[in-house]
C-alpha cells in the first residue's frame, strides 16, 4: 500500500511539475473563452451588414407595411418601368427588388409579385417579406369572414404555453435544451479527459519502456501496483486541473450573477420564487426577469447529484479506458505503433458523443439513449447527458443509473484484469510491434 502511494505521488508530481501541464491549466480556459468571444465577434461582423431592398409597388396595397428595421431598409421606386427599376437596383448594388404589380385583387397581387435578385436570395432576406404578405392575406381573409381590423390586431397576440412538471414546478422554455447542453458538456469533458489523460498514461508507460527503467521498478513493486499507481497519479493530476477550472469558473459565474444583479438569495427558497417570480421582485424590466428565471433554473439543476454522479462515472470510465491505454503503452515500443490499437478505443467514445448529441438531446428517455447509457463503454458519457433532467420522475429511472454503474464496475474489474496481464508481459517485451493474436497469447503467460 505504501509503495502504491509512493508511485502515485511520483506520477502526480511528474505530471504536475511538467511545464506543459502548468501552461495547459492556465492557458486553455483563456483560449476557450477567447475562442468563444472571437466566434461571437465574427458572427456579429458577418451579420452586421445592412440589407437594402428596393420596393417597386404599383398596387394599392402594402403602402405602410415596409418599414425600415435594424437589418433591412427599404427604398421605394415610383413611376418607372419595371426594367428601369431592375436596372437601377442592380447598378445601385441593392440586395434585391420586390415588384408588386397593379391588380385589382390582393390575392392576385400577391400571386404576381416577384422578388428579383442577382443570386438566389437566402431565407433571412425572404422571410420578412413573406411574413408581410402572409399577414396581409390572413387579415384579408378574416375580414371576408367578418372580422374587423381592430379585432384582427387583438386576436393576433403571440402566445407561449406555460409548462410545468407533474410535481407542480413551473418550468421555462429552453431549460431542457440548457440541461442537455450541461449534460453534454459533462459527457464531452469525460471524453476529452479520457483521451488526453489516457494518452498521458500510455505515453508514461512507453517512456518507462524506452528509458528501460521498467525492469528496475518492477523488481521492487508488482507490475499491477505500478500500473494502478500510474493511472491514479495521472488522473489526480487531471482532477487537480479540473478543480482549478471548476473553481475559477464558479467564481466567474458568481461574478457574472453579481454584475447582472441576479438575486442569489432566492436560492434559499427556490420554489416560492419559481412559482411566482413577480411577487418577490421589485419591478424590473421583463428581460431581466427571464434572465433571472434562467439563472435560478440553472442553479436549480441538481448540481450536487450531477457532480457526484459525474465523479462516479468519470472515475469508473476513466479507469476502464486508461487501463486499456496502459496496456497499449506496454504492448508497443514507441508512440507511432499505437495507432492501430487506439482507434478501437476512440470509436466507442466518439459513438457515445454522437449518439448523445443526436438521440439524447431529442429524447433523453428513448431506447437508443437508454441502451447507450447502460452499455459500459459509452455509459459514462451518455448517462451524464441524460442526468441533468434528474433522477426519478421525469428524469432517468433510478434502476437504470444503478444498473449502468453495476455494469461499469463489472467491466472495470474485467478490463483491468486483462489490461494488467497484457501490461505485465508487454513491459518486458522489446522489439517488434505485437499483433492482436500475440496479445491474446500474452494473456496466457
Amino acid at each position, binding site marked *: 500500500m505504501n509503495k502504491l502511494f509512493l508511485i502515485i505521488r511520483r506520477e502526480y508530481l511528474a505530471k504536475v511539475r511538467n511545464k506543459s501541464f502548468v501552461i495547459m491549466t492556465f492557458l486553455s480556459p483563456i483560449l476557450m473563452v477567447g475562442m468563444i468571444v472571437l466566434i461571437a465577434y465574427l458572427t456579429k461582423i458577418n451579420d452586421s451588414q445592412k440589407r437594402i431592398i428596393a420596393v417597386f409597388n404599383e398596387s394599392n396595397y402594402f403602402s405602410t407595411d415596409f418599414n425600415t428595421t435594424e437589418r433591412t431598409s427599404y427604398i421605394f421606386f415610383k413611376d418607372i418601368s419595371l426594367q428601369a427599376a431592375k436596372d437601377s437596383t442592380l447598378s445601385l448594388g441593392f440586395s434585391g427588388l420586390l415588384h408588386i404589380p397593379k391588380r385589382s385583387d390582393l390575392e392576385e397581387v400577391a400571386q404576381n409579385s416577384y422578388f428579383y435578385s442577382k443570386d438566389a436570395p437566402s431565407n433571412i432576406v425572404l422571410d420578412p417579406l413573406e411574413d408581410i404578405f402572409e399577414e396581409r392575406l390572413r387579415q384579408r381573409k378574416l375580414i371576408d369572414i367578418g372580422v374587423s381590423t381592430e379585432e384582427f390586431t387583438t386576436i393576433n397576440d403571440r402566445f407561449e404555453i406555460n409548462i410545468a412538471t407533474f410535481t407542480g414546478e413551473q418550468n421555462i422554455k429552453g431549460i431542457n435544451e440548457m440541461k442537455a447542453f450541461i449534460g453534454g458538456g459533462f459527457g464531452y469533458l469525460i471524453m476529452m479527459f479520457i483521451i488526453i489523460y489516457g494518452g498521458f498514461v500510455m505515453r508514461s508507460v512507453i517512456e518507462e519502456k524506452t*528509458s528501460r527503467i521498467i*525492469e528496475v521498478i518492477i523488481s*521492487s*513493486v508488482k507490475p499491477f501496483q505500478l500500473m494502478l499507481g500510474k493511472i491514479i497519479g495521472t488522473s489526480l493530476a487531471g482532477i487537480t486541473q479540473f478543480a482549478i477550472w471548476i473553481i475559477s469558473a464558479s467564481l466567474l459565474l458568481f461574478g457574472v450573477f453579481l454584475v447582472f444583479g441576479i438575486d442569489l438569495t432566492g436560492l434559499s427558497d427556490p420554489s416560492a420564487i419559481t412559482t411566482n417570480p413577480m411577487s418577490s421582485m421589485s419591478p424590473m424590466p421583463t428581460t431581466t426577469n427571464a434572465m433571472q428565471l434562467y439563472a435560478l433554473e440553472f442553479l436549480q439543476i441538481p448540481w450536487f447529484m450531477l457532480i457526484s454522479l459525474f465523479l462516479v462515472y468519470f472515475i469508473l470510465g476513466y479507469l476502464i479506458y486508461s487501463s486499456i491505454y496502459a496496456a497499449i503503452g506496454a504492448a508497443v515500443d514507441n508512440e507511432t505503433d499505437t495507432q492501430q490499437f487506439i482507434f478501437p478505443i476512440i470509436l466507442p467514445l466518439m459513438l457515445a458523443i454522437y449518439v448523445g448529441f443526436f438521440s439524447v438531446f431529442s429524447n433523453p428517455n428513448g431506447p437508443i439513449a437508454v441502451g447507450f447509457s447502460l452499455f459500459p463503454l459509452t455509459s459514462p458519457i451518455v448517462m451524464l447527458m441524460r442526468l441533468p433532467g434528474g433522477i426519478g420522475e421525469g428524469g432517468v429511472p433510478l434502476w437504470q443509473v444503478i444498473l449502468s454503474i453495476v455494469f461499469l464496475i463489472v467491466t472495470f474489474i474485467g478490463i483491468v484484469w486483462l489490461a494488467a496481464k497484457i501490461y505485465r508481459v508487454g513491459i518486458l517485451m522489446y522489439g517488434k510491434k505485437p499483433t492482436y493474436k500475440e496479445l491474446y497469447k500474452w494473456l496466457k503467460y
Partner: protein
Amino acid sequence: MNDILVANNVTKKFGNQIALNNVSLAIPKNSIYGLLGPNGAGKTTLIRIINQITFPDSGEVIFDGELLQPHHIASIGYLPEERGLYKSMKVGEQALYLAQLKGLSKSDAKQKLKYWFDKFEIGDWWNRKIQELSKGMAQKIQFIVTVLHEPKLLIFDEPFSGFDPINANIIKDEIIKLKEKGTSIIFSTHRMESVEELCEYIALLHNAEKILDGRLVDIKKQYKNNMFRVGLELENGENFLKLISDKFDISSSHYDVNSKQLDFTVQLPTDDTRSFLALLSSKSSINNFVETIPTANDIFIQTVQRKTDHE
C-alpha cells in the same frame, strides 16, 4: 543453510517456447556466482524469477532458507541488463524514490545515499536531471540505487556494459568489496572472459537447460586434460621433436634454429609429469613448462559441443 538461493526443478514456458527446462542450482552464501550462457539461454528468465517479476510454471525457489516470497524483494538488489532511469527526474529525488520502493525509510535512504554520493564524489549531481548526465554517470547512479538497501543477494546482469574501462574497474572493485562484506552476488554474463577473475562458482545455461555448475576451480580441474605447453632450448630440435613425437601426442610445434628454441604442446596420458620431465631434462634445458588450463570459454564450448553430440 549455506546457500542464499536454491532453485529446484524450475521450469518456465512462454507459449510453446521453453525458457527454462527443469533447472536446479544452489548459490552459496557470500560468494560471487557466475550465471553464464549465450544470449537466449534463459539467464534473464531465471533472474526474473528470482526477482519475482515472472513466476515459474513448476519448481520452487528457496531464498535464505524460506520459500521465495514478496517480502524478499527488499533483500535482493537487481541491476538488469536493460536498465535506465527516469530522464526528466532529478538524480536525488529519483534515487530516494527507488530506495523507498525497496522499503527504505526516507531518512535512511538519504543517509545511505549521502555515503555513496560522497564515495563516488558525485554529491553535486543531486539536483541535476538524468538527461543532463552522461551515460557512464547515469550508470553510477544506477549502481548506487541497486546496492543502496544493502541486500543479502545482489544480481548483476551484464554489469559492465556501458561503462568505460576506468569506471568498470571502480564498479568491479565495489562488487568485490560488497562480497567481502558478506553479500552474495549473482553475476550474469555471456562474456566468459570476465568471469574468471570474479566468480568463485559458475553455472552454465544453454538452450534453457543447466549443463554444468560448480566451483570454478573444480570445474577447471575436471576439464583439464594433461595438456602442457613446453619451451626447450637445444641443438637439433627437429630430431628431438621426431623422437618424442613417436611416444607422445605433440601439437603446434615450432623450432627456431637461430635461437635454438623449440616450443610445442604435449598431451600426456596421465597427470604424472615426472617421467616426461626427466626425459626432457636429460636432452635439453627447459625454459618453460606450463599446464594449459581451459578457460571458461573453452569449457563452455566443449560442454555445449559434447551436449550437441549426445543429441
